[in-house]
């Protein structure tokens, strides 16, 4: 086997989520269709091919389980596009933008973890602006929603001193 390109793209959690969800659907579908013999043969091949490649099936379900609990759960291609457009003005690296997209940080502390040398590159106002962009464009993840519902009375504002 020859590796043609070891790193052809960085994928966001959302893209992996979409891919795995689609493949899961495909797998279900190929079990169902039983039309002409031609179609059946194609289904057999698709199914057998998918079998070889789905030895990793438990891995796939586990991955889907993990990713479904992250903020990418409610993302759509339009949201991702809007987010990346809004990010242009903040001058962050690709890796940093990817992390913000995957994690949807809600506090300054998290921004500082994900953005390299953030104390030098971003002022407090810029961090606040970044937080605002992130939380307004990206929908909350399932866990954040749950926590918010539980803590509605006791949420205290993070003081970026």
């Amino acid at each position, binding site marked *: 086997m020859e*590796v*043609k390109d070891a790193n052809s793209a960085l994928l966001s959690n959302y893209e992996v989520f979409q891919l795995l969800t689609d493949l899961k659907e495909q797998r279900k579908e190929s079990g169902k269709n039983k039309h002409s013999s031609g179609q059946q*043969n194609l289904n057999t091949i698709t199914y057998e091919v998918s079998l070889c*490649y789905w030895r990793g099936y438990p*891995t796939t379900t586990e991955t889907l389980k993990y990713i479904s609990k992250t903020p990418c759960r409610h993302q759509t291609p339009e949201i991702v596009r809007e987010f990346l457009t809004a990010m242009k003005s903040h001058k962050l690296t690709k890796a940093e933008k990817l992390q913000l997209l995957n994690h949807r940080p809600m506090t300054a502390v998290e921004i500082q973890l994900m953005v390299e040398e953030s104390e030098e590159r971003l002022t407090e106002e810029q961090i606040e602006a970044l937080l605002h962009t992130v939380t307004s464009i990206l929908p909350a993840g399932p866990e954040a929603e749950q926590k918010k519902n539980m803590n509605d009375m006791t949420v205290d504002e993070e003081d970026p001193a």
Partner: protein
Amino acid sequence: MTRSSQGGRGYHLPPLLSSGILPGGAAQQQPGRSRGRRALLALGSVGGVVHFRYVVFHPFLDEILIGRIKGCSPEGVHVSLGFFDDILIPPESLQQPAKFDEAEQVWVWEYETEEGAHDLYMDTGEEIRFRVVDESFVDTSPTGPSSAEATSSSEELPKKEAPYTLVVSCADAAWRGTGWREPLPRVLAWGSPPGTPVPVGVS
């Protein structure tokens, strides 16, 4: 944390087949139309060159991830992501000072405040945020026939190694979903404790 690579390890996409597949049956021999690729000649099968893309879990250096503590050992804290669990936080990358409680087999962070030391336990099942510091790939491909025979003739089983392991740090990134409150990680985020590896600049 996931990358797409042409040929590699990890999760597999259904291959994009570049040669025709014909339903099982007689040998397919098409030398004239093989486009430079040789078809396998055998009853009921066809071969060809296949190009495919792998989707692999491969976080980048310094990436922040959230996982769950799987357990502790003298080697450090073992963390799992569910689908991948060869993740280790070595003792020096825990928040310091840290000590290993032999009785309970758990790592403890002795957090100092004005009121005195608080013991914070790295309990199994707790969520933890960490930073990727290092990775190691080990070739676990099966060895050839001669060495396999030698192994089976001796009584021991070869040690099972994980093909890919991550070494991570929670010295500046740690956060736990329950129990720990925001002010604690904040103290660390402003400046990494001495001894924390300095992140390599990302361009």
